[in-house]
């Protein structure tokens, strides 16, 4: 049974259709990269999955169970299993690094503070920020903030991690420090959705690549299929443009 299954998912922003008939399934531990031009619906798809934008139609199944995105309880359950990391990090500006990582486990999940803190320290060590526990987000570089955001997402022990253009707001030099962290996650066997324009990295880590355009998944396949032998003309056009330089 696939871990996550989407059937005919549609989503709108007001009158604007942003996702149309998106259908696919994902096995546990897969690393799914979503590529495509801006505005193609990649980020929207992640927002739909985590319930920030309820789907207008279609079904999402998590471990075979259909998710009702209009039920608060169902959305809570989904969010307890999936964590999202945003392009702009979205760290809580009023909290230190350590507090950012421990607040949800303690306040939402009711973990004892000491336990949450120990785990947070471990995660922050792993992303290379064990020495920045007391710093505030505005005292960190973009790359450091994004690594804190990843640690914060992991602190909730999700089964699926959604990474929404996590490197697009970063200086080129800082991109690699974030990608290194994602490599670690991939090695852990976590299911990952990765929206990105880092094509070399997508090719390296993905088990599947989905090419999206105008709200549709135009084509999906292994990185080799998508990058070396795309079947759809639109995919071919996109890939030839981005691989040219």
């Amino acid at each position, binding site marked *: 049974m696939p871990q996550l299954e989407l059937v005919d998912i549609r989503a709108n922003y007001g009158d604007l259709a942003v996702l149309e008939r998106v259908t696919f399934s994902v096995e546990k531990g897969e690393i799914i990269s979503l590529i495509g031009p801006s505005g193609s619906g990649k980020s929207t798809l992640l927002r739909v999955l*985590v*319930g*920030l934008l309820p789907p207008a139609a279609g079904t999402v199944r998590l471990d075979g169970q259909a998710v009702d995105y209009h039920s608060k309880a169902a959305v*809570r359950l989904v*969010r*307890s299993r999936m*964590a*999202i990391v*945003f392009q*702009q990090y*979205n*760290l*809580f*500006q*009023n909290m230190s690094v350590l507090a950012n990582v421990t*607040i*949800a486990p303690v*306040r*939402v999940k009711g973990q004892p503070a000491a336990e949450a803190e120990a785990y947070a320290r471990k995660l922050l060590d792993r992303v290379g920020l064990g020495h920045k526990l007391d710093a*505030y987000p*505005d*005292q960190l570089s973009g790359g450091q903030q994004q690594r804190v955001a990843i640690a*914060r997402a992991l602190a*909730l022990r999700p089964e699926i991690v959604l990474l929404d253009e996590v490197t697009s707001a970063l200086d080129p030099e800082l991109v690699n420090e974030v990608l290194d962290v994602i490599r670690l996650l991939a090695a852990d066997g976590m299911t990952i959705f990765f929206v990105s324009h880092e094509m070399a990295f997508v090719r390296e880590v993905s088990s599947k690549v989905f090419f999206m355009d105008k709200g549709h998944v135009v084509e999906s396949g292994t990185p080799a299929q998508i990058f070396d032998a795309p079947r759809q003309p639109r995919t071919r056009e996109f890939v030839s443009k981005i691989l040219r330089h």
Partner: protein
Amino acid sequence: MLQQIIDQAPKFFGYYNVLFLLQAFAATFLLSLAGCVLGFALGFVLAVTRRTADWRLAPLRVVMIVFTEAFRRIPFLVTLMLVFFAFQALKLDVSMFAVALFSVCLIATAFITEIVRAGLDSVHRNQWDAAAAMNFGYLETLRYIVVPQAWKVMLPPAFSFFVLFIKDTALASQIGVVELTFAGKVLANKGFPAALTFGTVLVLYFVLSWPLARFGRWMGVKLAPTRTR
């Protein structure tokens, strides 16, 4: 004039006059305190309720919007009269002080609601998204994430409003509430030099608003510290 003030001062600061001034000071103090504390508490509740997405609260939200928009535009004196006649029409026999107290709370609530709303709106949408994605509820998001970041935007206008507002309580004298300005008028009418009576009233207003402004600055440092990189 100075000679006149010096001559009259011992009589002016006689036991009954001082008692009278202290009573008036207490009235101004109570009106200000009620306005600030209740106004802030109610304004906060209103702003928070107004922001909810729950459709069941929609009628309540409309009432709140009409309330804040109306009472921020009506002059304080008109509000006082309105409340006064509303109580009369309802045949509620309450003191003038109660009328003033009620009016003061209405006005303060309307203004503070707007200040709190602006403060909450100043916190970036992405903070709400991040909190929602981590399963924080509406009130938890407010408590742990949004309100702590909104203090910086809410406190300065809130306290400058409070300081203005203390002075506005003087209008309660118009319906016969014995507060500071009223007491000043009474004593001036008794023949004490205007410079002496209103000078004393001025000092007493200052005694009220100065600590309040200091308290506002202290709250700012406490709740919205500025960090240096």
